[in-house]
């Protein structure tokens, strides 16, 4: 009789797009998992034990293995579990997907943050311009397809999930508009397609709840943006 597959647990927190990435990856692979929700303002011993370096969610526990950092976890899930592949098969296409994932997590984040969460004392125009240019570059990667992964959602789509859902929420909470359907038609179509997907809907925070959550934390995010700007 086959040995039982080792348990899969995901340490997450409400409202995190990084956690959503992992839930999507596990669901697309057909992996059953237990979601352990952290109160991110009062982090548990469990989280500190499993992610002593960064103390952040998501953290994947698979049997006796611990994996941290969402993009690292995504690749782990693709490699450790059977099921439809998240990354394309071709080495060059894989390198492109990884490049754009890094772009989203590194170059993209900064102007995005500063566009939305800095106060009226900061000239946002340069940040907004850069954020828009970044979206335009990313949009071009769709290359006429419904998703970055082709006909179905893949690695880069779930990596970009914050842009599909959280971006709109942030625009509503801050009153700052970044996305214009006329300027970014393919991007907007992608975003709508992503949030309408049945698997996505199973693990996507409800928009109104997310708006309330972000609104309650507006001061905190603005303080963080201010601090980072002067680092």
């Amino acid at each position, binding site marked *: 009789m086959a040995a039982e597959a080792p348990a899969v647990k995901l340490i997450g927190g409400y409202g995190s797009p990084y956690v959503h990435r992992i839930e999507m990856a596990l669901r697309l692979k057909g992996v059953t998992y237990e979601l352990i929700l952290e109160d991110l303002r009062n982090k548990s011993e469990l989280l500190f034990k499993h992610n002593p*370096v960064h103390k952040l969610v998501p953290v994947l526990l698979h049997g006796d*293995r611990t*994996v*941290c*950092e969402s*993009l*690292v*976890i995504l*690749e*782990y899930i693709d*490699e*450790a579990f059977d099921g439809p592949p998240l990354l394309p098969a071709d*080495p*060059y296409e*894989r*390198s492109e997907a*990884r*490049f754009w994932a*890094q*772009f989203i997590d590194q*170059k993209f984040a900064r102007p995005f943050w500063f566009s939305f969460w800095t106060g009226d004392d900061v000239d946002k125009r340069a940040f907004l311009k850069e954020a828009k240019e970044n979206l335009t*570059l990313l949009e071009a990667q769709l290359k006429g397809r419904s998703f970055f992964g082709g006909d179905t959602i893949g690695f880069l789509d779930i990596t970009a999930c914050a842009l599909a859902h959280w971006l709109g929420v942030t625009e509503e909470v801050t009153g700052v508009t970044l996305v214009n359907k006329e300027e970014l038609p393919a991007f907007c179509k992608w975003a709508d397609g992503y949030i309408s997907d049945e698997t996505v809907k199973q693990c996507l925070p409800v928009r109104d709840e997310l708006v309330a959550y972000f609104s309650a934390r507006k001061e905190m995010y603005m303080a963080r943006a201010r601090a980072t700007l*002067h*680092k």
Partner: protein
Amino acid sequence: MAVEKNNNGLQLLGFWVSPFAQRCHIALAEKGLSYESLEQDLSNKSELLLRANPVHKKIPVLLHGGRPICESLVILQYLDEAFPEASALLPSDPGARAHARFWAGFVDTKVFECGVRLWKRKAGSEPQVQARKEMVEALRTLDAELGDKPFLAGEAFGFVDVAVVPFAAWLVSYGRLGEFDVEEVCPRLVAWAERCGERESVAKSIHPPEKVWEFVGFLKNKLGDK
């Protein structure tokens, strides 16, 4: 392993002191892959570089049959996947692969990024003092991760060692800018750096710490806060 006369269709756009370019040189040497090395003038970027990396306009860029691959860790993984017959950089076990990716990423976000603030921000200013604290913590963490293992990857030199070893030449500079004793903060890392330096791939690719320090001086002068 056959060494192709046409350099496997590989070209590397690099810059002599860049730890990111050095990762690629080391990786190519470890895999026994010949390639054309094209040193770039970053003060006057070439058409080739701007076309190959229009998004970031940075090195390193690997060109394979003319197609560009950018970002050093993406390049390293591409080399493993495009040349599976050459000795692998990443281990085969998914857990070990995740470990390698995690620590390679750690060096980029916690060591390198902090190092930039260390030379860029005015010495003794609040942000620079903050950067000092963060650098010491990052190096202690890396030192603890190495522990008693001969290499970061374990018993044998691997992907994560390739990713981290170029920064070994920057330790002296970090110590001077951060006013801390490198031997005290990360003694095991120092010994590991020497061990790695005995490998031909590493010895050929990285420059002495004093050369790096000279370069840091140049950077500080040109781009540092006044």
